[in-house]
C-alpha cells in the first residue's frame, strides 16, 4: 500500500506522519498541494500544520488547492482519506466531513497528551482498534473545538460515526476531561462509509515508547487494515 501525505504551504507535520507510517511498514510519499493526480496511491493523509497560514479560517483556502480534486475523488471511490488536526479542519471545510472546528473553549493553544475513548471501529482510523479502548495521544491545536448542528451530531451518534471522545485516564467521558469544549467530547469522526476520517489529536506523535506513547500505532495501522477490508469484505 502507498499513502500520499499532502503538503500545503504551511503544513508542518508531513515528515512526522511519513516517519510514523514508515515505522509501521507503510510506504509514504510527500505530495505537493499543486499536484492534480494521485494515481498510484491507495490512501491519502492530510497532516497537521497551518495550511496556507490558516488565513481567513482553518482549511478555508486549502480546500481550493489543486490536490483537493483528486483527494475528493479518492474519498468518493472509498479509499482511506485521513485528516489529522489541520487535515481534519481541511476535510470539514471541504465538505468531506460534517461540522467544523472552532477556537478552543479557553481561547488558548493546547499542547498536551489527552486520553481518547474509541467509540467505533468502522473507520479507516479505527479498523485495527477495539471499541472501548482508551488511548493516550498528544493534542496540539488552537481550533480543536468540534461543533455541528444538533441534528448533525445526532445523526453522527446514531450512525456510529463518532470515532473518539475525550475522556480521563480511566475512560470516563466527562466535562472535566474535555480539553477544548468539543460538543459531546468529540475528538474525531468519519463519513458514512468510514473511509474518510478525521481527528484532532496526533497519532503520529505516539508511535515510539521513547516519545511517551505507542498508542498511535494502532490508529495508523487501521489505514491498511481498513483498505484490506474494503478490498476483501468479510
Amino acid at each position, binding site marked *: 500500500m502507498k499513502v500520499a501525505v499532502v503538503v500545503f504551504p*504551511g503544513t508542518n507535520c508531513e515528515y512526522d506522519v511519513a516517519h510514523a507510517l514508515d515505522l509501521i511498514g507503510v510506504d509514504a510519499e510527500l505530495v505537493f498541494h499543486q499536484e492534480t493526480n494521485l494515481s498510484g496511491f491507495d490512501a491519502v493523509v492530510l497532516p497537521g500544520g497551518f495550511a496556507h497560514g490558516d488565513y481567513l479560517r482553518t482549511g478555508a483556502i486549502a480546500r481550493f488547492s489543486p490536490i483537493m480534486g483528486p483527494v475528493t475523488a479518492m474519498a468518493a471511490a472509498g479509499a482511506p482519506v485521513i485528516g489529522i488536526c489541520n487535515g481534519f479542519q481541511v476535510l470539514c471545510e471541504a465538505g468531506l466531513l460534517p461540522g467544523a472546528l472552532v477556537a478552543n473553549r479557553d481561547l488558548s493553544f493546547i499542547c498536551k497528551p489527552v486520553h481518547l475513548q474509541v467509540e467505533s471501529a468502522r473507520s479507516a482510523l479505527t479498523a485495527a482498534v477495539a471499541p472501548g479502548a482508551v488511548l493516550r495521544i498528544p493534542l*496540539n491545536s488552537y481550533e480543536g473545538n468540534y461543533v455541528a448542528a444538533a441534528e448533525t451530531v445526532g445523526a453522527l451518534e446514531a450512525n456510529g460515526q463518532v470515532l473518539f471522545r475525550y475522556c480521563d485516564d480511566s475512560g470516563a467521558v466527562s466535562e472535566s476531561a474535555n480539553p477544548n469544549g468539543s460538543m459531546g467530547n468529540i475528538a474525531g469522526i468519519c463519513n458514512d462509509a468510514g473511509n474518510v476520517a478525521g481527528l484532532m489529536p496526533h497519532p503520529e506523535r505516539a508511535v515510539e515508547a521513547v516519545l511517551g506513547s505507542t498508542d498511535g500505532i494502532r490508529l495508523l495501522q487501521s489505514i491498511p487494515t481498513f483498505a484490506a477490508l474494503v478490498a476483501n469484505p468479510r
Partner: protein
Amino acid sequence: MSQAPPAAAEPAHRQLGMTDDEYHSVVGILGREPRPAELAMYSVMWSEHCSYKSSRMHLGRLPSSAPWVVVGPGENAGVVDLGDGWLAALRIESHNHPSFVEPYQGAATGVGGILRDIFTMGARPIAVWDPLRFGHLDDAPNRYLFGGVVSGIAGYGNAVGVPTLGGEVEFADPYAANPLVNVMALGLLRRDQLVLSAASGAGNIAVLLGAATGRDGIGGASILASASFDEESGSKRPSVQVGDPFEEKRLIEACLELYGRGLVVGIQDLGAAGISCATSESAANGGMGMDVDLDSVPVREDGMTAGEILMSESQERMLAIVEPEALPEVVAVAAKWEVNASVIGTVTEGGTLRVRQHGELVAELPAASLSDDAPKYDRAVARPGYLDELWAAGITEAAPGDAAEVLLALLDDPALGDRSWIYQQYDHQLFLNTVVEPGHDGSLLRIKGTDKALAVSTDGDGRRCYLDPRRGAARLVMESALNVAVTGTRPYAVVDNLNFGNPEKPEIMWQFIETIAGMTEACEQLGVPVIGGNVSFYNETAGVDIYPSPVVGMLGFADPMPPAPPRLDRAASGMEIWLVGPRDVADFAASAYSRVVLGRLDGRPAPTDPELGPAVIATATGLAHLLPVLHDISSGGLGVALAEIAIASAIGLAIDDIGWSELWSEGPHRFLAVAEPGTLPALEVPAERIGLIGGASLDFGRHGAVDLTTATREWRAAIPRRMS
C-alpha cells in the same frame, strides 16, 4: 518684547541616535558630509544593538574555542560538530524593548528573527526556547505583558512550524517597566549544508527573498533597542515590526530547498538594520563591494525614501547571493513556495557599497566601514555602593518554622509553581524529537537515525547577579551545565544573552564586566566554549535599571543517548533518595526562601567550587545512564526539589533527619538522585541517602509534613490563579 527665536532643530544625526563624535568619524571616512541615506545607514549599523560598541572590548575574554567548534561568535549562529557529519547551530537574541511596546508582536518577531539566524546557516530550525522576565503578576499591566508575550511566542512559533521546548521565567519589580524577552533557537544540519554570509564572485547577483519592505520597524535597532525608555515610549509603537509566520514558514522551506540544490553562494538574513546590514555585511564578509538598486525592492507603500527602505526592519526577508546562471532555478524554487524573489544588486570588486534610487546615487561608502569602523567605547566602571550593605545584611540560617507553611508558600510562587500554563500553549512535540519535554531541568531531543541526543537548558537569575554578578554568572553557568547533565548529556557549548541597564552608568558597566568574568571562569572550569551571544543594554526605564540579567543557554550532547533518560515522574515506592554534592553550604542570598518567606534580597551568594562543580556535573552525566530520576537542586532548595519529584511522580516521600536550614538553602553543585535500593554506584563526589519514596505526603520528619494532594494543588494553581 521680541519673540524668542525658534529653537534650532536637532541635527539629523542626533535625531537618529548618533553622537557628534560619531558623526565626525563618518565625515572622516567619507571625506565629505554624508548623504541622508548614508547617515541613516551609519546610524543604525553603529547603534549599540548592531555594533556592540560598549561591550566589544570585553566580550573577547569569553572562551570561544574547542576542537568541536565549527563556527564561533560573529556569524549568525554558533555551530558545533556532533560527529558523523552532523552539526548543530545555536543562537540567542533579545526582543526586550519591542515586547514592552507591543508584547504579542514583539515576542512573535523575536521568534521569527532567531529562526532566520539559524536557517541562514543552512540548518533546519528544530527548537526554540524563551527565557522571560516580568514584573509581579499581582499587577494587571504585568499580567497583560506576560500573557501577550506567551501568546505571541505561541502564535508565531506554532504557526511557523518549529516547536518551542520551554525556557524559564522570573518575576521581579525591576522588570515591570522593562520586561526581558529572550529567545534561543537550535538548528540541525549536515556538514555539507553549512552556508556562510560572505558574498563572493564579482558579477554574482543579490536576490532579496520574502516579504515586501514597509515602514514598519524603521530604526528598531537604534531607537528601540539602543536607548532607554521614558513615559513617551508608547509612541514608539510604529518602530515595532509585525510578523507573518506563514511568510516565514514558506521562506524556510524555500531557502532549505535552495541550499539542497546547491543554488546559493552566500546568504544573510535581514534583521536589525534591514537592507543596510545585509548588503554591507555580505559584501564586507566576502571582501567585495555591491551595487544595489532600491527601485527593485518590493515596497508596501509608495513614496518611501532611500533611508526608509535601507533601514526598514520589515520581517521575513533574506538576501541570497547566487550565480547568474542559477537565477532561473532560484526564481522557480521561490515561486513554488510562493516567495517573492527580486534581483536587487550585483557583487562588485573593490569593497564599495553603492546604492541607487530613481537612477540617482544615494549612498556610496566602503562596505566594511559600517561594521569594522564602528566606534568602540571603553566606558567608565565603578563598583556599586549598594553591595557592602547588602552583603553584610545577609542571613546564614532559616528562622524556625513549619515545613508545610514554607513549602506551600514556595510552591504557590509563580516562578516555582507549575509552568505548564506557559509551555502547554507551545507546540513542543513537532518533529518527533522531544524525549524529555518542558517542565524538567533540561529538555532532551534525540537526533533521529542516530544514537545522538542534544539537551538544552536556559538559565538566568537577576537577583543573584544583582547581589554578586561575578559569582551569580558563574553559578548560572554551573547550574545550566548541571541541568543538561541530569538528562545524560555533557555540557558542550554555551550561548549567552547579556541583559543589562544603561552602559553609560559606571555601575552598570561594572556589573557587566564582573558578569563576563564569572562566566569566563565557569566556562573555563567546565571546558565549555561560548559560541555566540547577544548584548542588550539600555534596559532602563525612567532611570531605573533592571537587575544585571545574563541568561545562559547551555547545549548538552550525548552519544549515545541514555537508554531511559531520567525524568521527574519515574520515582516509585521504595526507591531511595540520595543527595549528591556538598551538604553544608548555607546560602540564602537571593534564595526563594528569603524572597517569598522573608521578603528580603540581601547577602552574598556562595561561590562556585572550581573542582567540585565540574565533578558533580560529570557525575550527573554518568548517573543519568543508570537511574530513573535525577533533579538539580536550585531555586527553592532541597525542599522544593523534593516536592517537584513527588508531584510529578504522584507519590509521597519521607526524609530522614535533616537540618531545617538545609531544606531551603540554595548552595550550588547539588542534585537529587532517586534509585532502587543498592543501585547507586560508588561516586567520586559526596553523596548521602536522605530518604525514601512512598506514602501520600511529603514527610519532613520533625519539621512537619505536607499532604501531597494539597502541595500539588497549590503548585498547579500558582500561575493560572493569577492569570484567570
